[in-house]
């Protein structure tokens, strides 16, 4: 009995041992599979890593190449930029030098014009005064022929002085150096002075002269530079007399119209040829028929007149029919004036 019990225990142990060995075997096999699987996974990950590394390396190489190309391009651009900057600095210096030179030349030109005007006027003044002395009978009376010669000489000299003044004024207008001194005042005394200045010549040509000038209180004051506006009116009136034949007619009028003071100088002179009116205020322009009537003249007077009227914020227009006469209309606004 006891023997049988021992045999049964042995069998159980053997069975248990066999079970343990089986489990161990299974476990080993399983572990082996895990290892293999891990190895496969490891291999796979390594492969993927390698591929990624290859790709990354390839991209890095490409990137490095691109970066190098870009850097080179940028360097070239910087170099070009430097070159352009150097050129600009050089040009800037050249321009600064040129500007300085121009300023010096401009100052020299102004001085030259001023000195030239002085030097030209001085001998002409001597001649003018000498003729005036003769006409004033300081050396005794003149006979009619002598008087006529001296008067013509005086007129020539006066024209020459006017020409110098015109050139001087135009030079100043163009340089922007003509000083304007605006003051709110009546245009009437300025007009009266200009009319008085032209009356003698008009009378000599037997030109019928009419003027419609209202009382000062009837015309509003305007902002004007008296001297410059006097120059404007003197020029317009001088042209009217110059280009109106003997025995002709000139009408002068001042009026107020819609916030403007209006001056009209209407003559019965030679007029302006069709198609030339637009050029009337251009520098050095002289109408064809004007040259045949009056050889002297620079074509600067009306150019300067327009510049001065513009500076007063005014307008100048011309209405003319060739052979019948010309009207020059100047309007100056009551309120506005351009101050320097």
């Amino acid at each position, binding site marked *: 009995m006891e023997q049988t019990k021992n045999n049964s225990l042995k069998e159980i142990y053997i069975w248990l041992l066999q079970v343990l060995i089986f489990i161990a075997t299974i476990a080993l096999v399983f572990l082996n599979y895990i290892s293999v699987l891990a190895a496969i996974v490891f291999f796979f990950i390594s492969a993927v890593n390698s591929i990624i590394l290859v790709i990354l390396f390839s991209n890095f190489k490409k990137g490095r190449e691109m970066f190098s190309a870009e850097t080179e391009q940028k360097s070239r651009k910087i170099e070009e930029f430097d070159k352009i900057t150097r050129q600009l600095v050089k040009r800037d210096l050249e321009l600064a030098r040129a500007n300085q030179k121009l300023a010096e030349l401009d100052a020299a030109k102004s001085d030259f014009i*001023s000195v030239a005007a002085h030097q030209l006027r001085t001998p002409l003044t001597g001649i003018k005064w000498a003729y005036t*002395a003769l006409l004033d009978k300081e050396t005794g009376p003149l006979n009619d022929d002598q008087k006529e010669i001296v008067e013509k000489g005086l007129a020539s000299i006066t024209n020459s002085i006017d020409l*110098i003044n015109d050139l001087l004024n135009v030079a100043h207008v163009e340089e922007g150096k003509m*000083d304007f*001194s605006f003051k709110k005042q009546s245009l009437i005394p300025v007009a009266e002075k200009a009319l008085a200045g032209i009356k003698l010549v008009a009378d000599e040509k037997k030109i019928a002269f009419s003027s419609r000038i209202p009382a000062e209180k009837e015309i509003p004051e305007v902002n004007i530079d008296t001297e410059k506006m006097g120059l404007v009116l003197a020029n317009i009136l001088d042209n009217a007399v110059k280009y109106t034949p003997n025995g002709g007619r000139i009408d002068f009028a001042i009026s107020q119209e819609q916030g403007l003071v209006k001056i009209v100088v209407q003559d019965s002179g030679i007029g302006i040829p069709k198609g030339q009116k637009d050029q009337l205020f251009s520098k050095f322009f002289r109408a064809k028929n004007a040259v045949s009537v009056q050889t002297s003249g620079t074509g600067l007077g009306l150019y300067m007149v327009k510049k001065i009227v513009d500076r007063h914020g005014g307008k100048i227009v011309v209405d003319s029919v060739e052979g019948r006469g010309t009207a020059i209309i100047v309007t100056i606004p009551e309120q506005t004036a351009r101050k320097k």
Partner: protein
Amino acid sequence: MEQNQIDKKTILIVEDDVFMASLLERKFRQKDFEILRAENVDEARKIIQSSQINLILLDIILPGTDGITFLKELKSNTQTQNIPVIITSNLGQQEEVERGMTEGASGYIVKAHATPGEIVSKVEEILGK
């Protein structure tokens, strides 16, 4: 006659152009002025020291010292500051005129724009003659 001499106003013409100065002198003498002439500022200074001057006609461009410098000198000297000075010049730009007037001139005449008769009239106006 002596009384007439005393009443005569004396004008000093400072002008380097002798011909123009002589034409001016002729006109002034016709109008009963006494005339003294200087061709430059040095001569003018000597005349002013030795004579009673009622008015000075002063050119600007002169040999040696220019007229504007002389004008400043006259106006800064108590002995001469009350003598009226009229500038007679052929420099006629506005800035030149303004400069002359700022320095104390009583008038500014551009010679080319005036006659001797007109200059005499201006002098008479200033002297209240």
